[in-house]
């Protein structure tokens, strides 16, 4: 592991965006059963062709039932002073319900390891602004302005654990195996040009939304400037952050259901739209025109987890499918798995001596979302027409 660059990228690299190849994995137990971290670690670590020791991370949902009503803030601090400053600030503007170190297994010979901290927090009620919005602003503020501090995640009953190292090192360091979650996301990376930094590893998170991403967004400038008009600050020198913010904007701020938000991110081609019924044409063209700046271009596959209103796992690739994403569902149809490679699923089968088996393993259609919800199960399988299984009404026709 690299014991430096925790809360920001070294100065000489700040002008550049980080490009990387990556391994991504994730799964959800539809009935809400919680697993320890073993499966997700196995799924991720087998993808070792896709990493070069410069970053990995995990997101786990359902891990803090005791504090489930409070925002679980996961921090990276460079030193005690930055920690004190941030915690004092939080006490000024809200309530710290609990504040403690995140358990880690730091190797003996490290002298300046980061301070890994968590705080369960509730902002003070303010008129005209929701607590969610207050926390979003807080995250933007701390990550932009507080030197030596970085918020890794800010959702409720969930958390992100990430850093600069091989996936197995990060898993050990954060003792991922000890957490119990109903939904897991994981990421390992192969950055091309920078030493990497801890905060810059994936998953990227805002409130309950976490994103792991493989690829490079060629529309970054367009997406970033669009988000800036809505008050988001893109300061992390990576394109994954824009994906997290776009999903936050579409799903939380604009209240768009995720199957439809996925259309805004990777819309069908106009040639395909022209073939559809009038009603769908109007809906799809409205989406494309209104959210033309939210469309993601360039090679990507993403796995997204979020918890509002219903915990959901969501996967998507770019319209040309220039990055891989494979889906698998367990024999009992209770667990939906997504991964960059089928190897992740094979690993689970082999490790369990064949006890763990899959009912089906399949490849997604380009630009088509796969979505599974807690309790409801698989609601989109990743190869449907845009409005399949949706009873759509369009006002005015």
């Amino acid at each position: 592991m690299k014991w430096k660059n925790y809360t920001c990228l070294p100065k000489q690299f700040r002008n550049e965006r980080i490009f990387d190849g990556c391994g991504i994995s994730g799964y959800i137990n539809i009935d809400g059963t919680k697993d320890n971290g073993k499966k997700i670690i196995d799924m991720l670590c087998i993808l070792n062709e896709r990493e070069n020791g410069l970053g990995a991370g995990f997101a786990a949902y359902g891990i803090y039932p005791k504090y489930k009503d409070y925002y679980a803030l996961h921090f990276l601090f460079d030193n005690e002073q930055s920690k004190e400053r941030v915690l004092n600030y939080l006490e000024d503007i809200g309530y710290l319900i609990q504040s403690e170190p995140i358990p880690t297994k730091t190797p003996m010979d490290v002298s300046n390891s980061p301070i890994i901290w968590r705080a369960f927090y509730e902002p003070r009620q303010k008129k005209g602004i929701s607590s969610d919005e207050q926390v979003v602003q807080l995250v933007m503020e701390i990550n932009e302005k507080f030197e030596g501090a970085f918020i890794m995640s800010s959702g409720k009953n969930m958390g992100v654990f990430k850093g600069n190292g091989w996936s197995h090192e990060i898993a050990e360091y954060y003792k991922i195996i000890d957490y119990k979650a109903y939904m897991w996301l994981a990421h390992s990376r192969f950055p091309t040009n920078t030493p990497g930094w801890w905060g810059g590893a994936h998953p990227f998170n805002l409130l309950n939304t976490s994103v792991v991403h493989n690829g490079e967004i060629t529309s970054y400038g367009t997406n970033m400037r669009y988000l800036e008009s809505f008050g988001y600050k893109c300061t992390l020198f990576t394109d994954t952050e824009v994906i997290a913010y776009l999903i936050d904007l579409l799903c939380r701020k604009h209240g768009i259901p995720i199957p439809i938000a996925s259309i805004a991110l990777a819309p069908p081609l106009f040639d395909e739209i022209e073939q559809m019924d009038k009603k769908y044409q109007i809906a799809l063209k409205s989406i494309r025109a209104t959210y033309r700046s939210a469309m993601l271009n360039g090679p990507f596959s993403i796995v997204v987890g979020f918890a509002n209103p219903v915990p959901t796992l969501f996967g998507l690739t770019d319209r040309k499918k220039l990055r891989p994403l494979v889906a698998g569902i367990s024999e009992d149809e209770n667990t939906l798995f997504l991964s960059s490679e089928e190897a992740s699923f094979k690993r689970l089968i082999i490790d369990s001596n064949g006890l763990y088996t899959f009912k089906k393993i399949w490849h997604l259609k380009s630009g088509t979302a796969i979505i599974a919800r807690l309790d409801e199960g698989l609601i989109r399988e990743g190869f449907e027409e845009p409005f399949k299984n949706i009873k759509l009404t369009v006002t005015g026709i």
Partner: protein
Amino acid sequence: MSLSHNIPSYFHIKVDRESCKKCKRCTTHCSYGALSFNGERIVADDSKCVACQRCVVMCPGSAIRIVKNESFLPPHGNYTRRIRNILWAQSGNGGVLLSATGNDRPIRTIFDDLLLDACQVTNPSIDPLRETIETKIFFGRKPKKLEFLTDKKDSTKITLKTEFMPNFEIDMPIMIGHMSLGSISYNTCMAIYQASKELNILAGSGEGGLHPDFYEYGSNIITEIASGRFGVDINYLHKAAGIEIKIGQGAKPGHGGHLPGEKVNSLISQTRMIPKGSDALSPYPHHDVYSIEDLAQLIAALKEATRYKVPIGVKIAAVHNSAPIAVGIVRGGADFLTIDGFRGGTGAAPRIIRDHAGIPIELAIAAVDERLRQENLRDEITLVAGGSIRYSADLIKIIALGADVAMCCMPVLIAMGCRVCQQCFRGLCSWGIATQQEYLVKRLDIDVARNRIINLFHSWNEELKEVLGAMGIDSVESLRSNRDRLRYIGPNPKIAEILGVKHAGE
């Protein structure tokens, strides 16, 4: 003889006596009277030549060459030949000098200092010959957000509540700018409108009214309401795909339209609804728009008149304060906003204004796009940028700087045969473009001209796709405002800062 007649010509007409067949064709083709036959041979009057090249092209013996007048004026680095010519012309005629086309001063073009990005390794480029790359654009206002309601009991029941405003779908992010019937000929207009319909792009009507023959192309025409209100009737409003209120034009910010009486024949007098032979000078401001509230009212009135069926927009010239003005216009209800840069063309404009007023479109668009974003208004409107979009490279760069649509005129005229002689205001265009004289207008073959425009924009659109593909982008929406994909190599870092573009190497 007054001094003004002695202004040394820029050009010299060389007629090769050996190859001249004495057919006299050149004398009839030259609409400026520079060539005549004295019974023995062709005589050339250099002082009348505008280098329009008509005689050169038409001469069956290839006997004519227009060359630079080598006659050398005493050199002076400050009182250049250009300045001296201006002074001689003014002291000869005592009036405001007219000119046409766009600003011809050799001011550095910012477009030429911008470089494009392309993919290597980490993101694959896209091959436009094998993969789809989309260039469709929605022209008009968009809502800030769409409202989808999910049924409380059945989450698969979803209702799209937001009703979409009128938007016009065009197949390329291109609009042919406003050139009025009057400044250009009937044949030129017809070729432009036919090509626009065929390409499914937009063309502006200019402020010259809409001849009934053009109604059938109305679905691709944006008509223009200018301060003179020439030719505005119910058809002008109802036959069009959109309406634009012209506040200003890049070639002459602060000025109204300017059609010399020489060009007002009976056809023009009918469509503009003005007397034959009279100068059609639009008032400088709209006399019902002295403030932003007045403009908002005019926009509202036009929306009422057109039953909210078509987008209503506003065009302003790129001036120092374009950004806050643009915000006011969008708040005032405009569905699209056109910014016309200081190099924009004209059929006739006072030279002093053409050459010295306004700012470059690159800077204006960057500033307007940025300010509209700060106010969270940018994505609601269609931003059109004109003012010397010379070729596809400029189109690509202006979109990356923030425009939705690039508007251009000169390339269309050049495609049809214009040689950029800058004499449009005289109404003698030897190519049948900027003229109303029947014998000249006939020279422009509508079919040929239309096909050349179609070819031109096909090629621009293909080149746009090539560049998008190289950038790993499969839809032009993802290029708009994507300044990340531009780099600056010019001498002035301040320009890069205003454009929001990094320097090459960064």
